[in-house]
């Protein structure tokens, strides 16, 4: 091993270590920012070391690519709104997958054109795996972006024989991969242009990525984004196997692990298996008419006005706010924080209960509230709030529905049975800010709205909070 090669390898080792230390610092908000910078520094080391590589003969294309990519990345990172963070991460995942897939493609073409030695079996398998995972991540992420951005319908897109079609495409992909791996050695499939088979593999993999994500509903996006995050890491790791490059393997494995952990947490938060999320087409258009037959209206609930809510909150000792995605849609986070500040100034203890799937990606609601200057020390997980929720004077539910539906706890036949919820119905009083009695994403009625200790304040969340805030100020 020459001096340059040794330098590069040691630099890669250093950057792998720094990636791990950077991620470790993400375990506390106090050190997280330094951790992210450390990881960015590690990336810089890896890039600088790579540029020493003796097989790099010209730098024009590299410089052009880095400048274009850096400009686009910087603009996107600066302009994106916090509500749009899930689609932003989806797009970045997609680009990561594309880069890994293209690296694998270049390796394949070098073998084909004879500019690189015939690959070992392992390397050939790794190239195919990198292509498949990279392409699926790319197209799947673009569909996820489209759904989150509202370009593609949020509802699951289903068609007859969906699983069979997907299964056949997958089999075709596997067949193409096997052919591409064994053909150069055995002479099997001689006469079949292997580069065409390889391009076919790309088409099939891109198609599979699209077909796997379109049947998944908008409320299940946290799982999909987490899973694609994991794939983007695995694609990088596969490229690392193909290039025999350890920093790619280690970094890819770290991201793969991170995505898998988040996927598992999100599935648990909905009490659903990963298979059910991917194939279950949850959240199709709500069925007409409820099973009970009786259509309940606003007359059946305890409908209140801003004044009543203000009185209840201002004279409470303990208040728990339960935000849902509807809060972000109404852009009411800042007004909500003002209301919480007012209450605290009056000596009310205010806490926020954050359900893991309250946003469109893991931790999304926490970021939205942080943007509105809510200190993270006020944010609680549901298992911290539920045990003594009966001593809470008032729960304020804003734009949440399924995540506070007692049916998840009480009705074993409910589609959301077993899903952890914020048990707001056990608090002394519960106020729900909502436009109407329409069901949430799961398409089921919410018994909470009709409970004796519940009050409904109908209207746009932002308007309602402003009105409550004004009333509280006058008290």
């Amino acid at each position, binding site marked *: 091993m020459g001096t340059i090669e040794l330098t590069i390898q040691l630099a890669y080792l250093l950057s792998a270590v720094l990636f*791990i230390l950077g*991620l470790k610092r993400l*375990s*506390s*908000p106090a050190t*997280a*920012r330094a951790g*992210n*910078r450390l*990881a960015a520094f590690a*990336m810089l080391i*890896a*890039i600088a070391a790579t540029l020493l590589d003796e097989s790099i003969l010209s730098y024009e*294309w590299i410089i052009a*690519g880095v400048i*274009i*990519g850096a400009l*686009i*990345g*910087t603009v*996107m*990172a600066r302009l994106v709104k916090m509500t749009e963070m899930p689609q932003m991460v989806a797009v*970045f995942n997609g*680009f*990561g997958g594309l*880069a*890994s897939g*293209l*690296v694998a*493609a270049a390796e394949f*073409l070098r073998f084909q*054109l004879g500019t690189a030695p015939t690959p070992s079996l392992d390397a050939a398998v790794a190239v195919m795996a990198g292509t498949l995972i990279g392409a699926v991540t790319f197209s799947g992420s673009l569909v996820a972006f489209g759904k989150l951005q509202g370009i593609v319908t949020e509802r699951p897109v289903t068609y007859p024989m969906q699983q069979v079609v997907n299964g056949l495409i997958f089999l075709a992909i596997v067949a193409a991969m096997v052919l591409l791996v064994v053909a150069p050695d055995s002479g099997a499939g001689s006469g079949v242009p292997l580069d065409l088979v390889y391009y076919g593999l790309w088409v099939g993999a891109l198609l599979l990525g699209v077909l796997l994500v379109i049947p998944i509903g908008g409320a299940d996006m946290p799982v999909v984004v987490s899973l694609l*995050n994991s794939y983007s*890491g695995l694609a990088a790791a596969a*490229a*690392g196997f193909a290039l025999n*490059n*350890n*920093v*790619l393997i280690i*970094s*890819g*494995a*770290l*991201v*793969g*692990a*991170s995505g898998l952990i988040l996927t598992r*947490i999100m599935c648990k938060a909905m009490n659903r298996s990963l298979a059910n999320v991917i194939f279950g087409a949850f959240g199709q258009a709500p069925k007409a008419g409820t099973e009970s037959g009786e259509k309940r209206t606003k007359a059946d609930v305890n409908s209140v006005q801003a004044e009543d809510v203000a009185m209840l909150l201002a004279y409470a000792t303990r208040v728990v706010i339960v935000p849902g995605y509807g809060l972000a849609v109404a852009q009411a986070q800042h007004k909500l924080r003002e209301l919480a500040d007012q209450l605290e100034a009056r000596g009310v203890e205010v806490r926020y209960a*954050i359900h893991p799937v309250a*946003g469109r990606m*893991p*931790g999304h609601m*926490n*970021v939205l509230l942080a*943007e509105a200057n809510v*200190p*993270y*020390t*006020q944010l609680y997980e549901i298992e911290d709030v539920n045990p003594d929720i009966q001593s809470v004077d008032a729960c304020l539910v804003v734009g949440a529905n399924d995540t506070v539906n007692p049916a998840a706890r009480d009705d074993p036949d409910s589609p959301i049975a077993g899903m952890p919820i914020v048990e707001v119905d056990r608090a002394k009083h519960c106020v729900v800010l909502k436009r109407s009695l329409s069901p949430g994403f799961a398409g089921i009625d919410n018994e909470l709205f009709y409970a004796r200790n519940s009050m409904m304040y109908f209207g746009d969340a932002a308007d309602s909070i402003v009105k409550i805030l004004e009333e509280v100020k006058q008290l």
Partner: protein
Amino acid sequence: MSGTILVSIYVFVLAMFTGFEVITKVPPTLHTPLMSGSNAISGISIVGALVIAGLGEGILFSIIGTVAVIAATINVIGGFLVTDRMLRMFRRDGEAN
């Protein structure tokens, strides 16, 4: 199976375990920054892309390599910047922003 690939598999499996250990300790409140930050790390494939873009083995490789460099750079730069932007907003009770 060659010795090289065996070593690679060792590295991969051990890195996965390290990842699980480190990331399990990240609190839910930081899950979005974790995701965007780890996402930026997956842009490490830029390392492979740079070599391809600089090979000088013909226009095909230059184009594939450059597209890969652009995609990976967006991923890396965008990912780290947006993570920093988010983490800047997290504050404790009573801290000035």
